């Protein structure tokens, strides 16, 4: 073990969706206690990169280690709290907020029955995101921001050491953005490691230690959060269109939207 503190180590990672290469030799290292933002335009490969980290997109080349273990042999999934893009989680049967959050506890209980400790954890996670009073409500009755808070509670309920979030601020109202930033601040203060995909730094900017910027499946920046790049990165710039640089926009086929 040369580096006990490396939580995620992705080296020379390549991945493809169908025949189209999406990651072309990505290096990404996240150390314990760091908050790393993965930035980039639509189609730059940032979502694919985090989905590769959690084992949902196979690597065509390169290596991936989680907590010092090759991903292929990694079994300790309760150490990772994953918050997918909100659109992926929708069932055809109503489910309550509590039921959704409780399902996140399965990374610890697996096939066993839950006990009191598990029920307490569900309550704590709901409290953390300010949704305890909505526990019995149907998730379909929630706003986008509230739904996002539920998905974050689902990830936090297993007390993970590493949080991986894909676009946690997309379509989230102001009140929920503040709750999310506050929740994340608490997790970071308690020593959690965070990797999150963002369109732009936004309200989470003060929390972020390092930014990795992807363009066309390659890392083009790895270091402190980018300073002003023209008007776009200026604090207060009303960035209504999500692309960092129109010139860097890859050819859009429409296949992925």
């Amino acid at each position, binding site marked *: 073990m040369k580096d006990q503190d490396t939580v995620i180590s992705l080296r020379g990672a390549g991945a493809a969706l169908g025949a189209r290469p999406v990651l072309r030799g990505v290096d990404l290292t996240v150390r314990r206690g760091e908050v790393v933002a993965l930035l980039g335009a639509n189609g730059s490969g940032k979502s694919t990169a985090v989905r590769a980290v959690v084992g949902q997109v196979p690597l065509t080349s390169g290596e991936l280690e989680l907590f010092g273990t090759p991903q292929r042999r990694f*079994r300790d999934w309760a150490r990772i709290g994953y918050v997918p893009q909100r659109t992926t989680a929708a*069932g055809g*049967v109503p489910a*309550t907020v509590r039921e959704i959050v409780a*399902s996140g506890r399965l990374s610890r209980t697996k096939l066993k029955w839950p006990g009191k400790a598990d029920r307490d954890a569900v309550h704590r996670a709901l409290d953390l995101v300010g949704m305890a009073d909505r526990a019995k409500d149907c998730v379909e009755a929630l706003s986008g921001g509230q739904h996002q808070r539920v998905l974050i509670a689902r990830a936090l309920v297993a007390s993970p050491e590493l949080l991986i979030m894909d676009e946690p601020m997309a379509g989230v*109202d*102001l009140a929920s953005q503040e709750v999310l930033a506050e929740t994340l601040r608490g997790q970071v203060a308690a020593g959690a490691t965070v990797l999150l995909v963002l369109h732009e730094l936004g309200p989470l900017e003060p929390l972020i230690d390092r930014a990795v910027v992807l363009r066309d499946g390659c890392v083009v920046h790895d270091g402190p959060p980018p300073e002003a790049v023209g008007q776009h990165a200026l604090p207060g710039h009303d960035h209504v269109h999500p692309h960092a640089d129109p010139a860097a926009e890859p050819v859009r086929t429409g296949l992925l939207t």
Partner: protein
Amino acid sequence: MDLLNYAFMQRALLAALLVGVTAPAVGIYLVQRRQAIMGDGIGHVALTGVALGFLLRTSPVWMAVLVAALGAIAMELVRSKGRTRGDIALAMLFYGGMAGGVLIVNLAPGGSTANLTSFLFGSITSVSAEDVTVTCLLAAFVMAVTLGLRRQLFAVCQDEEFARVMGLPVRWLNLLLAVTAALTVTVAMRAVGLLLVSALLVVPVAAAQQATRGFAMTLALAVAIGVVVTLSGTVFSFYVDVPPGASIVLLAIAVFALMAALAAPLARKRARAAAAAAEQCTLDLPGGRSPGDDVSVQGAKG
């Protein structure tokens, strides 16, 4: 209750009860995964099993169990690969199962398509003592899986990718669910018939969720609806000589229509209450808005 004096009617009602409990208990996961049509496919494939039973002079029920389980596994493999041509592959399986059943039963000595009718639409007089034993065993297995593993199956059907990242054995749970669905179809075969079995997997769940907000409540109410319609449909078929599958399914649809009619005003009321609550939250925002907040509002537009 003179109908309970008939031994065949006792068996038919027991079979109906087991179907009423098991079909919605499995169906809810298929509906949750938006795969409501899967039961229909398994029913078609099971027909080939029934016909094979006639041809090989073995029990049609056990052959249906075997072939339906293989068909369900094949469907699950097609689904999990998620190829764009998945629906075509499933269509091949559906129609192949139906055509295979008709072909094989006519090859059987003295066999004709008429042999299949009771399996296609259900028949209360044809439930034998042996059928009841088989049905009880299968139903016990189905309930053990659908209730014992309900948290795991819920997680897999709600958000499969998240379930995989939690380290759940998603592939095995999916195959187990597929096989359980196949067993349920064969449990239901005698009471409602293979062509209508899918309705009993789906309609009680659809009816229940008109009035519920959570998964556990939907499951409980769907099973209750399932039991009511299968028992009353079977009794109806005793007095009015029609195949029980038809009366059970029409009753289930009637319950759905009733629930939907009753729930519509309730849903409107809830929506209004939610809208009012949302308005209040925005106004009560601590600190109100400062000019700096304009930056964070942008996320809502993306």
